[in-house]
């Protein structure tokens, strides 16, 4: 095993001076170790969480959470798996919000930019309160994104919302009942399906495969024995 080299050990405040902090989970107080994530605090408190956990890595948006820090009136949002607890923190997971998702056949859209208004007629009713932007745990400028969608700049929307984990925290705060994440998803998909250049080389490759261009190579490779295959692999540069 490794030698115990004192030189190469990272100081960790939570190990040097382990401390418990007081948190309030959905109205009930618990002592939990300092430095753990909100999700781990839930587990530490003995709570089984089924609704509200997914990838545990900040990508799936399942663990949307409201929290407030000590003595601060401001309620903020976070992803529970990506946030560290603080002493005096108060938090509760956010249940899924019943936002309306429009259904559409993305490939059959005739006029995607106009269709937005039929699918999401509330989209242009944004009253600029900016609550959605403030609610976004991914720091996306959500309000700006909604306007860009309304003005047909779908490309900008797709770029701005590449970070969107669909946690839906922008939906309950909207006073115009817009579901900004769903509007953005529509705009991004429509952009990809209708307004992006087709990659010519990809079609070319598909045709080569259907035309049997690689048939000869395949026949050769598929009848090789293991030794010959090892050699063929080694020759790849």
């Amino acid at each position: 095993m490794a030698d115990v080299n004192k030189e190469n050990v990272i100081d960790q405040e939570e190990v040097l001076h382990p401390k418990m902090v007081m948190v309030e989970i959905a109205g009930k107080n618990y002592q939990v170790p300092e430095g753990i994530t909100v999700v781990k605090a839930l587990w530490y408190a003995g709570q089984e969480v089924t609704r509200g956990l997914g990838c545990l890595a900040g990508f799936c948006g399942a663990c949307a959470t409201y929290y407030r820090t000590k003595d601060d009136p401001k309620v903020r949002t976070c992803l529970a798996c990506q946030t560290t607890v603080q002493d005096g923190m108060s938090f509760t997971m956010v249940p899924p919000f019943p936002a309306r998702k429009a259904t559409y056949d993305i490939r059959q859209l005739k006029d995607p930019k106009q269709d937005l208004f039929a699918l999401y007629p509330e989209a242009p009713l944004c009253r600029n309160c900016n609550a959605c932007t403030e609610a976004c745990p991914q720091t996306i400028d959500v309000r700006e994104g909604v306007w860009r969608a309304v003005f047909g700049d779908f490309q900008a929307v797709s770029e701005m919302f590449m970070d969107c984990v669909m946690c839906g925290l922008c939906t309950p705060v909207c006073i115009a009942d817009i579901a900004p994440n769903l509007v953005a998803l529509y705009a991004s998909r429509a952009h990809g399906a209708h307004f992006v250049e087709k990659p010519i080389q990809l079609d070319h490759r598909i045709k080569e495969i259907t035309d049997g261009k690689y048939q000869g190579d395949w026949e050769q490779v598929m009848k090789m024995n293991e030794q010959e295959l090892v050699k063929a692999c080694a020759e790849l540069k």
Partner: protein
Amino acid sequence: MDIHKLQEIVHKTRDARRKQVLPKYTPAERDTLITKYHPDFRENAYRPIKFGPNEGEKTVRELASLLEGDSSVPMDLGLTPAHTCDVLVVGGGGAGCAAALHAHAQGAKVILATKLRLGDSNTVMAQGGMQIAVTKEDSPVTHFLDTLKGGHMKNDHDLLKVMVEEGPSIAKWLLELGVLFDRDADGNLHVKKGGGSSRPRLVTASDYTGLEIMRVLKDEVLNQKIQLLEFSAAVELLSDKGGCTGAVLRDLDNKRFLIVAAKTVILATGGIGRLHIQGFPTSNHYGATGDGLAMSYRMGAKLMHIDTFQYHPSGAVYPEQLIGALVTEGIRSEGGHLVNARGERFVNELDTRDVVSSSIIRECEEGRGIRTMSGRIGIWLDTPLLEAEQGEGTLLKHFPAMVRQYERFGINIAKDPVLIYPTLHYQNGGVKIDTHGESDVKNLFVAGEASGGLHGRNRLMGNSLLDLMVYGKRSGLTAAARAKSMPQGKLTLDHVKKFKDEAKKHRVSSDVVSPMLFPAYAKKE
């Protein structure tokens, strides 16, 4: 010591390292390294499976006891179906969605059941990209050989050939659905180089490839109005004369059993990271507990390569909150160095995952690692190097997800290298399938990580996303076509009874109930 003091050596040695070219190991050197350091070769972590289709074969202890585990379903359970369909898809990740969409497009009545929400999966976290041979300099045959080499020549040739050949048409399908892959200036798909690949072949959506694909597929499943059963975990399959005829689900809210009659079943239940094999942390999602393996094994499906797992070289070790989380391989693809406590590189960073992981373990076991006070160990991944090479702002531009991941805990990866150690990432093997995704059990299909054979003994970066899409599609199409021409079979638990008898015969009295569904993290007194 203060972390910044420890990092100084990485900054100091950066310029000297930039001039270095590290050769890849020869095949013999690779074998020696892997045999000595890879977790797959830790004898005491393994034991033979006592009975069933893979009797006598070795796998890790954690999995062996699940496979031999007992059913949670009472044998006198009433089997009147609550739902009836042509195709039941179990699992809501990439493979499950691809299977459901393709089966639905064929006119089959599809139900998609998943124990968490639609889309909760490992797919959503995939950052590195999807290998597809699209460039002029590349070909499906080269993709085949690269994968074979990466898999230590143990890959199923037929499964692999199908995957590489169908890759381009999968890319086309995803583009039509609106997936936004990165492009070159001429409009063609931009490709990046991945570890173990001889050509740049990774099709990407910045470092959000899996998220982008999953967002679109999820939306498409909803648009197609495919029937969903969320928070409904499959706990047993149903059989008629050995063939699969449906499943028993458990509604996780009211805990009731829910019987689904299905002419065909597609298991797309994913991997096993949450079993924490050999005590490793994992990059996997909360539900990655190998449910499909346990259920199909009881039904008589043969498993393949279940003694080999992928430990991704770069799992986060520091800060504590990120332990096990994946640090994208893209950093190494773009030239990031792995650096030990002495400031030295020790492996060609673009070698295959098993080789790179083994070399990191070697460095740490030989005392050249960096420790954390909570007892972890790791080596540096020199992220600031990318800024030095390609200009300020490179990381934010190309790795927004990773920048965000560390920023949340006060670490600026443009300035500070990060500490990493291998994390349990992928199950190389799984249920043996044919080129249509069908297992040894009639009408039981398996797609994605739960299936085995395609990747051999080590999966190449970027091949999983493609595997999911290709075998999701093929199993979906085949299952839908099959369902058209046959009646619904009877619903019985005969195979479970038989399995219980086998257990008794082998004197296995298991107190392990499988599938496990979730890891037990909640603290109970």
